[in-house]
């Protein structure tokens, strides 16, 4: 049992840090430190392309698809250094973390050739259309319908329905979605996984303003929206399997990078507390110590998860990670406001726009909801981790 990375990995870390810092102090210094996902979209698309041009976009992918064939440890290190250097989040994170890995795992050779190099090059931005107004926690109850129209070589999918919480759909080129393609099917059966170009008449995108005033999410309306017959991944009716395989990619590599962002937030709280004297309050000191402990435990939980080599076993650290970080960060937001006092409740901007800490307080309420609410996480932990019986469904 060891805590750190190998010497070779530490060399790789230096290489990453040097390159990233060089970019952030030169051509892309204007986007350094941006934390809002919606800020400067055009420059950030250029940044995606810049990463791609230097083969730093999808380093874990095979070289022939634009990657470097990097090891898991190297990917984790890159994510960590990326955040440490103050580089803003990837606007194509769905493309590189979900679409790409799904195509790599389940796509045809033709799909790989068509999509992977462009995703790696930052030229194709993806968003994800899974949730619907009536398919949230119960994701398998999607109602969006898809049908094949036409004959022979001219067949195409025609899709009707509504998706919601489609992050960054307004700046994306393609949407990944699951649609019900078997008439009368229910639940996870009869769903198909499709990729669809966004720029078409049948797709309308409306922003959803969030509690912090920002609009990162969208409603996506599909009215006879179309894509070619070969735009599906996997077989017809196997969409659920693909989507679930895809959700499994959502964690792992990015965890330590994400934590570097949390580190910055906690450090900002610590600085604010020293500045305004809150650091002398014994209760605040206890809460900051708890936050510090929680953050460190997240790091070592992630390292345990990433060190796991026996994937046949249920990994407790992996199963509990989502609720752990989400709850921690929500508490951090509350701590931030406790430290700031009323100064945190006003902004010196003309618009309804917030600095990092008040924004953290507002934004972190989403953390315990998206990607599986804390309540759903507890169900998963209880059922998969502890072997407890499933909750009986109300519609069976």
């Amino acid at each position, binding site marked *: *049992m*060891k*805590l*750190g*990375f190998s010497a070779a990995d530490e060399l790789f870390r230096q290489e990453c840090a040097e390159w990233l810092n060089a970019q952030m102090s030169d051509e892309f210094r204007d986007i350094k430190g941006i934390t809002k996902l919606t800020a400067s979209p055009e420059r950030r698309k250029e940044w995606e392309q810049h990463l791609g041009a230097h083969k730093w976009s999808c380093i874990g992918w095979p070289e022939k698809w634009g990657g470097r064939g990097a090891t*898991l*440890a190297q990917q*984790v290190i890159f994510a960590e250094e990326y955040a440490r250097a103050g580089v803003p989040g990837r606007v194509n994170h769905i493309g590189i973390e979900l679409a790409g890995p799904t195509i790599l795992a389940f796509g045809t050779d033709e799909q790989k050739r068509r999509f992977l190099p462009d995703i790696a090059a930052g030229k194709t931005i993806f968003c994800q259309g899974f949730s619907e107004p009536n398919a949230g926690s119960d994701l398998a109850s999607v109602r969006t319908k898809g049908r094949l129209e036409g004959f022979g070589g001219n067949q195409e999918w025609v899709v009707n329905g509504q998706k919601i919480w489609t992050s960054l759909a307004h700046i994306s080129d393609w949407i990944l979605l699951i649609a019900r393609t078997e008439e009368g099917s229910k639940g996870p059966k009869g769903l198909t996984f499709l990729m669809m170009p966004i720029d078409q008449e049948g797709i309308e995108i409306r922003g959803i303003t969030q509690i912090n005033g920002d609009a990162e999410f969208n409603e996506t309306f599909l009215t006879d929206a179309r894509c070619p017959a070969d735009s599906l991944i996997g077989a017809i009716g196997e969409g659920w399997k693909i989507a679930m395989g895809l959700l499994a990619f959502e964690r792992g590599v990015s965890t330590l990078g994400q934590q570097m962002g949390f580190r910055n937030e906690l450090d900002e709280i*610590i600085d604010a*507390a*020293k500045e305004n004297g809150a*650091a*002398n309050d*014994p209760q605040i*000191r*206890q809460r*900051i*110590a*708890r936050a*510090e*402990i*929680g953050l*460190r*435990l997240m790091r*070592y*939980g992630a*390292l*345990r998860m*990433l*060190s*796991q*080599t026996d994937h046949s076993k249920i990994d*407790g*650290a992996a*199963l*509990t990670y989502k*609720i*752990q970080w989400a709850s921690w960060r929500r508490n951090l937001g509350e701590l931030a406001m406790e430290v700031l006092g009323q100064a945190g409740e006003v902004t010196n901007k003309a618009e309804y726009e917030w600095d990092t800490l008040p924004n953290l307080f507002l934004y972190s309420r989403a953390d315990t909801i998206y990607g599986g609410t804390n*309540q759903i*996480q*507890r*169900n998963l*932990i*209880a*059922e998969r*981790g*502890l*072997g*407890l*019986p*499933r*909750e*009986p469904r109300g519609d069976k």
Partner: protein
Amino acid sequence: MEFAFTDEQRMIQETARAFFTENATSKRTRLAMAGDGIDRALWTAFCQDLGLSGIGIAENAGGAGLGLVEMAIIAEMAGAQVAALPMLGSLVLSAQAIAAGGNSAQKRDLLPSILSGARIAGYVHDAELRTDGELLTGGCGFVAHGGSASLFVVTCNDGAWIIRADAPGVTVTPLTTMDQTRPYARVLLSGARGEPLAEASAAITAAHRAGFVALAAEALGGAQSCLDRTVAYSLQRVQFGRQIGSFQAYKHRLADMMIEIEQARSAVYWAACAVDEGSDEAALAVHAAKSFAADTFFRCAGDMIQLHGGIGFTWEHDAHLFFKRARAIQTALGNGAWHRAQIATMVLGATV
């Protein structure tokens, strides 16, 4: 990334798990509780037959080598059964202090008999100890298994000594203790002559770091047992025509236990590893592990009683053994607020 047990560590874990599950049974523990809180046969078997009592003490000091990670593995497995053994005071605190701070004669004379279990040592920490040359006055009201000790390691914040329990000026009073698996004794020193450990600060640091980690590991094992036993009960108990483990109010509480336990596991092995590797993080990690794992254990033990209903409140059920041990661990060697205050000082600086 190798933050996972090696094959050797997994073997130690399996050996220790089998040993404690098989031998540290409820029946035997309860017999020990009626006496001085030590299952003598278990103690002898652990120290002499199993060969794991010297783990964490260097081989040239008479130990079995290896480090705190391996020691934590053993403490975790002992904690899982609330084993009635004087490991904390004797093998962890006292032996670590002597191994780190004693001269070669002290190590040679004392460690073999402590590690073999023949001699039980108790650990007395008194921050306000008064010294007059080698004469010590002070003591501690809560010395784990102090009533069974024939030798004490006595420390204050800048000194460490060895004192025989039967030396003049030493008064030992065994106390009826809530956690009967680790009863306390009051140890009073009035001008008792101490034999100094040469490297006091090394002795204190080693003893406390090992003590924090061992208590945290014990807490982790205990918490995991509380969860495992409650899960088993929830699958067997039927109310309203359903296994009670199928109710969300019930299963979410079990899930919360698991979430805390997984963090406690990271905390314990992070801290153990950090000390073993001499990492800069060690100082913070040991406080994090002690406070977090102790709170986790207490929460899980309390939930165990609640989730068992009436049976969990009876003397007959083992839930109270865990609950009482958990409470004791929370306070032993500094409570959670104290450990977090140490971390706050590292992170924020001292209050001004």
